């Protein structure tokens, strides 16, 4: 009898232990599935008030889903790396992805994000500006919901430069004049070896009537317009307008050079306005904006921003689509635009004059509206109508890296030979044949 009892006891213990282990495992995997609410994991770059927007959508969902916000690293390269590594590994732990406009084609071509179809697509396209929409549309299929957009403007000090020039030559002339007068004369551009340099080149190239790749993103375009653009950049980099540290200027040093009083103007994103208001309020009244400069007239801006995509490996794609629609609806875009300074993609938001809390009076500090936070909103809208996107290709990362390497430092650009080098290296990069620097 005794051995039998021992055996039974052992069996009981074993079964019990197995049950406990299985239970632990299940609860670890299931998340809050046990409570009935599916969890949608959102991965996006850190933005100050994003968590509030997520909270608003979670409340509106009434238990249909719960969005969990996960933050990606700070720099764009690190964000992309984390996303693509997990997507390449078919990670089911990601549902909604906040992606840079330039990665949309790459992730779509690799088959890692789902197309927006039917009524979801209609809701995205309804009222959204065409330029941001074009960054998410690849060969006629929509792969992302534009959540915010961005264009650079020419920001200048009206006390030094009363009339902003429309061309780079005009800027060079103004800088020469100011230099002779012994006044601040640098015009800041993003000339460091990084994505910002590609943005600058892409804008100048668009102003010259060209593009880096053809429309389908399959072949190098460049050619004569590129030679014009490159000689404009080279001329600018060797003129009185160029800051000596042009070859390592990124967005923030450019902003600081104007705020610090060493530069007269900068080509930069709209966030510099809020920054000037906070850092140097006494300079704000002379801090004006104008359209981005071009070659023969006003230029064309390069579009930036974020698209929301749904991962191919999401276990709840339908819920993820409706959650993404909530995150980027007009009310939430307005909230993000006013509090975080990210320009909306829905046109009506630009014309919305009501403050954040419509029941109270508008106040620039306590209850801001699009009018108080975005005095330059019409300029942004105007630029968005002519804005161009960066090459829409799956190999954008390669194209961008090669371009910024070959154009750095801008002082040493030789229009004809640099165009030839760009052509051959980008052509290799497109076929993922070349070596990335």
């Amino acid at each position, binding site marked *: 009898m005794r051995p039998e009892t021992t055996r039974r006891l052992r069996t009981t213990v074993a079964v019990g232990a197995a049950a406990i282990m299985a239970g632990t495992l299940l609860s670890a995997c299931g998340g809050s599935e046990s409570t009935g609410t599916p969890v949608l994991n959102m991965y996006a770059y850190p933005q100050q008030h994003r968590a509030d927007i997520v909270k608003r959508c979670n409340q509106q969902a009434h238990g249909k889903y719960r969005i969990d916000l996960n933050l990606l690293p700070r720099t764009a*390269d690190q964000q*992309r*790396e984390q996303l*693509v*590594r997990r997507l*390449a590994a078919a990670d089911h732990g990601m549902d909604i992805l906040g992606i840079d406009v330039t990665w949309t084609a*790459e992730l779509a*071509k*690799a*088959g890692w994000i789902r197309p927006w179809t039917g009524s979801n697509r209609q809701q995205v396209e309804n009222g959204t500006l065409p330029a941001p929409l074009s960054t998410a549309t690849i060969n006629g299929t929509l792969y992302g919901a534009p959540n915010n957009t961005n264009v650079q403007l020419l920001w200048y000090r009206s006390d030094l430069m009363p009339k902003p020039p429309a061309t780079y030559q005009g800027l060079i002339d103004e800088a020469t004049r100011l230099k002779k007068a012994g006044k601040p004369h640098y015009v800041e551009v993003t000339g*460091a*070896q*990084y994505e910002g340099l590609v943005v600058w080149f892409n804008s100048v190239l668009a102003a010259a009537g060209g593009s880096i790749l053809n429309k389908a993103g399959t072949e190098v375009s460049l050619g004569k317009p590129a030679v014009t653009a490159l000689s404009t950049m080279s001329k600018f980099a060797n003129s009185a307008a160029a800051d*000596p*540290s042009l*070859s*390592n200027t990124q967005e923030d040093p450019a902003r600081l050079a104007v705020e610090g009083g060493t530069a007269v103007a900068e080509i930069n994103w709209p966030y510099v306005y809020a920054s000037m208001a906070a850092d140097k309020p006494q300079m704000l009244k002379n801090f004006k904006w104008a359209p981005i400069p071009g070659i023969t007239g006003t230029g064309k801006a390069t579009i930036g921003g974020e698209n929301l995509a749904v991962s191919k490996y999401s276990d709840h794609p339908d819920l993820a689509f409706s959650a993404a629609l909530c995150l980027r609806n007009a009310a939430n875009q307005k909230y993000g635009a006013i509090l975080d300074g990210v320009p909306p993609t829905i046109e009506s938001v630009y014309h919305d004059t009501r403050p954040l809390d419509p029941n109270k009076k508008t106040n620039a500090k306590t209850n801001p509206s699009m009018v108080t936070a975005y005095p330059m909103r019409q300029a942004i809208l105007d630029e968005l109508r002519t804005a161009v996107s960066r090459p829409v290709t*799956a*190999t954008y*990362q*390669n194209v961008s*890296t090669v371009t910024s390497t070959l154009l*750095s430092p801008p002082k040493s650009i030789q229009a004809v030979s640099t165009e030839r080098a760009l052509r051959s290296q980008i052509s290799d990069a497109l076929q*993922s*044949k*070349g*070596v*990335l*620097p």
Partner: protein
Amino acid sequence: MTDDGETRQPRDETRAEADIPAPAAGPVAAATGAATATVPNGARRAALSEGRRSERRLGWLLCLPAAVIMVVVTIYPIVYAILLSLQRADLRFPNDNKWVGLTNYVTVLTNSFWWHAFAITMIVTVISVAVELVLGMALAMVMHRTLLGRGVVRTLALIPYGIVTVVAAYGWRYAWTPGYGYLANVLSDNSAPLTQQAPAVGIIILAEIWKTTPFMALLLLAGLAIVPDDLQRAASMDGASTWQRFTQVTLPLMKPAILVALLFRTLDAVRIYDNIYVLTNGAQGTSSLSILTYHNLIGGLNLGIGSTMSILMFITVAIIAFIFIKGFGTAAPGSDNAGRR
């Protein structure tokens, strides 16, 4: 023989049975000695008794887990990398993967970025290892001779080596950042050394030296310890000066230790990654081979080209190790004699 530890018994028994002399000392022979001993010719195998055979089977069984783990964690990834290097394999074009033979090798070896990174890697390696050897030797002598507070001196000298490389690299980066870096502020205004090629490479080398000189010193200290004091005293009785004693007695006796230290540090320096990643991430032409490989493999998602680079780096490291072991007679770890045969 039978007095040996239990685990070694089967191997030594077989060796006696097979009547094969103990393997010649030397890295290759030492490593393969066991294998040759366990594969005697057919006639002798037949003569093995049942007990011996089962003992040998036990030996194999005991080795098996280690062998399986080695295959899984080391051999498989290497073989997989070799296979990938012969394919067009790009994660963004999963449907376009195909065999391309040696095309990737031609692409990489005819590319200027690759050779530029190769040159930078070699410059960093040669300069940093040479300086480390001199400084490390000086540091080792100090640590060896210090009578007072020996423990404190050794601990202080080893601090840089104890700091995580990435953390140390961030320290260097901030020190050289204009505005708030204490080293950048020493320079004239508006100079940002990390954004220009030559100064940036200089800073990378400096960071490497600062970080790994203690490691060099540690290896050399072990070498110094084996130089008998009697010889030093005898030399000084014969009228040798301090410098003569150092060059004629200490250095020759330390040669194995110096060569091992050089080999370790050279192989380490060729693979330099973390310092460059933090300091410049390869901008302004400061990419090393590892950084270039990382950018192509992880950033570019190009598994074919990236694996080709990994294999080429592997070959580079193997060639350097070969030169050290065959050319200079560096002893490999685990053997007790110079490797030259």
